[in-house]
């Protein structure tokens, strides 16, 4: 069933949802959000697109197989944990770098924790889309 209203609004909504998912991911450490929520929001965007158009269209738009995204996310999260080993610290100890930090402030905080959260984002995003695409295809 193709609905003109749905397809038209979806173009706008899906893009917004994807942007919002990244926003939720990045703000997660200090405000509600994070990789898990971000991944779910991002997946919702693509699910909406899948419903409005088709699974084939959505796959084309994503370009990469979602199961690959999930596994890569898992790998990134694992590597983020392992990187603590380089500093001689136990698995999954967060490593931090504070760019442009001025007296007392934390500047632009970069960390392996953020990398880990990106991995979570990708794993959740890819995992959900793997399921949805598999359920949608061939019907």
């Amino acid at each position, binding site marked *: 069933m193709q609905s003109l209203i749905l397809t038209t609004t979806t173009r706008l909504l899906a893009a917004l949802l994807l942007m919002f998912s990244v926003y939720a991911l990045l703000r997660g450490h200090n405000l509600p959000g994070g990789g898990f929520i971000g991944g779910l929001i991002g997946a919702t965007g693509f699910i909406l697109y899948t419903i409005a158009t088709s699974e084939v269209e959505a796959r084309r738009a994503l370009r990469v197989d979602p199961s690959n995204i999930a596994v890569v996310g898992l790998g990134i999260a694992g590597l983020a944990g392992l990187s603590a080993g380089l500093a001689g610290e136990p698995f999954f100890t967060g490593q931090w770098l504070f760019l442009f930090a001025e007296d007392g402030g934390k500047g632009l905080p970069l960390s392996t924790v953020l990398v880990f959260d990106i991995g979570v984002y990708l794993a959740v995003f890819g995992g959900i889309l793997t399921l949805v695409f*598999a359920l949608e295809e061939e019907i």
Partner: protein
Amino acid sequence: MTDDYPKVDRVMGGPAGWISIAFPAVLFLYFLGLLPQIVNGPQVHGIDWVPSLGVRFSVLLDGLSMTFALLITGIGTAVTLYSARYLGQHPQYPRFVCYLLMFMVGMLGLVLADNLIALFVFWEVTTIASYLLIGFNADSAKSRRSALQALLLTGTGGLVMLGGMIILGNVAGTFELSRILQMGDMIRAHPWYMGILLLFLAGAFTKSAQVPFHFWLPNAMAAPTPVSAYLHSATMVKGGVFLMARMNPALGGTDAWFWILTIFGGITAVFASVMALRQTDIKQTLAYTTLMALGSLTMFIGAGTHYAIVGAMTFLVVHSLYKAALFLMIGIVDHATGTRDATVLRGLWKAMPLTGAAAGLAALSMAGIPPMVGFIGKEFMYKASLGLGGFGAIWVTVMIFAASALMFVTGGIVALKPFRGELADTPTPAHEGPWPMLAGPLVLGALSLFFGLVPGVLGHYLVGPATHAVEGEVHEVHLYLWGGVNMALILSLLTFLAGWLLYRSHESIRARLAAFEARNPIDFDAGWDRVLDGFKAFAAWLTGLIQTGSLQRYMAVTFSSFVVLVGGTYLIKGAFGDGLGLATASVHPVQWTVLALIAAGSILVVWTHSRMTAVAAMGVVGIGVSVIFIMFSAPDVAITQLLVEVLVVVLVSLAMLRLPYLPRRSRASFRAGHAIIAAGVGVVTTFLTLSVLSTPFDRRLTTFFETASYPEAHGRNIVNVILVDFRALDTFGEITVVAMAALGALALLRGTARKKES
């Protein structure tokens, strides 16, 4: 092993070959250099591995581990050199080398480890390497079966042994062998001693193939010949013997130890010697003589007197030397003639003089004829058995006499008969083997002679220190070839006589044994298959019982278990608390509205006849719950809940499209049963929630996260900080589950789609 594989052009196995030869050779020289220090006393080195569990990677260098290390690396050099020529052109030779080196590292770790847990890890490494090597000819179903049998049997034994190790570690308060070995009196007097002993022996007996766990070893001969020579005669199967020798100061010396080891060892030795006579395939004959040797070693370690330990340690070295040489010799004969059948091979002496010389030296040592070192080993074993006293003396002497006489016969069958007489027709014409294959057996054979002529060297450097290590105290060890006319010598001469008489009639004995075997109802190998079949049938029965395939049944079982277990615990413990009369006045009117929404959704789920409506109504319930989370200011949980509810509705509706149309089951009893379960879950959950709320809230964790979150983890959102930092490992586990569940569902969906097409 036949040559019917596509050959790859490699000289001596290419780089893999050279690496595999250099590795044990360098280590052998290294250990040889350490030998003079070890003669003066044991050394312990180590680093921490898992300090929180008391696991250290520590090395105990004493006479016992040194003797084993030299055998492993020395025979390892001979075997890798041999393999480079024997298998060097095999397409999978590099893989073979990997397995062999993996085994070598495992075996060295096993004998050198000073920590029980480390010892166990290396023990399992050798088991796995052995599995891979027995199954190296993976095209053959027989190889695969033998490999699996060896893995399951020795692996199970190893796990049982781990139990013994953990108990022993708790009793002794340490896993360090060098300390445990000094607590022998305390351990032997401990009430758990018997349990520890039996668990350890389960590991040792499976690894060293004692009756009734012996049958995997002859089957393991499916491996390429160098593997049989190395793992399944000279080194790995002695792992169990090593363990018994190693644990002797801690566990040995009791009546239980004496009788279990001498009885099982004795039966194994004689049973194996008789079975060796039965075989026509020379490799199988040798496999059974290995069993005989393992039985004898077990018996003498059990006997435990000074002479018994000296005899066992001497025989250990003696056996490794001659048995590896004989196996390698059989490989050369097999390679050159295309057969290993003792009834076919004749007159090889002229065509293969060097092979014959190596075989002769090794077989003389096996038969225990002076001046070979085998004679010394046998003399000391007789001396030890005569010195035992009581029934033990008779038992051990009779067993060792029978085994030695039969060994004499087997020596003749293996190394005398194939080389004497006129050259017989063989599948390929006999010719001498190449030098890399001859070097090993010749050197090993020559060593058997050298140690026989100069027994003092063997006694001073290897047997003496090894005996000290096994006994746990220092005694003078003096090996000699000529001990004067005594009882042991007379027994030796009688052994030769009995052996000679048996050799003359061995063909008729073999025929009779074969006839007996055909009628014998006890077959361990077939019994093993029955045990495995039993396990499979049990698994199938259990799966059929639990996994009915009906989702409704699963749900019913899961939820009624929840009601019975949680509700039952609740009633028995009377955990109602005081707060069940929770004041309703604190509920805000807006919250009442949301609650009404949730209740309406729930009723609709039960009421409706449409699946889609039910799914959507479930979504309404979920969204109501997430609104409540928002009211109680838990935005992260609320957002997640909201998103998950939306996704569940989407996913379940999509799945619904794939479901076949089924007539609705609306039998009253069916619906009533489910209504009872549903009501039970609701009641139990409600009571549970209320009583949790009525207990005072423990804020310790919350306070910790609140205070530590920003200063330590640089984040203000506690929920997220917990997820990605404090409990990152949990999250990692969860996303692994997410990804794996998605992949699993993908496989299932694709699978059903393919079935539909076909």
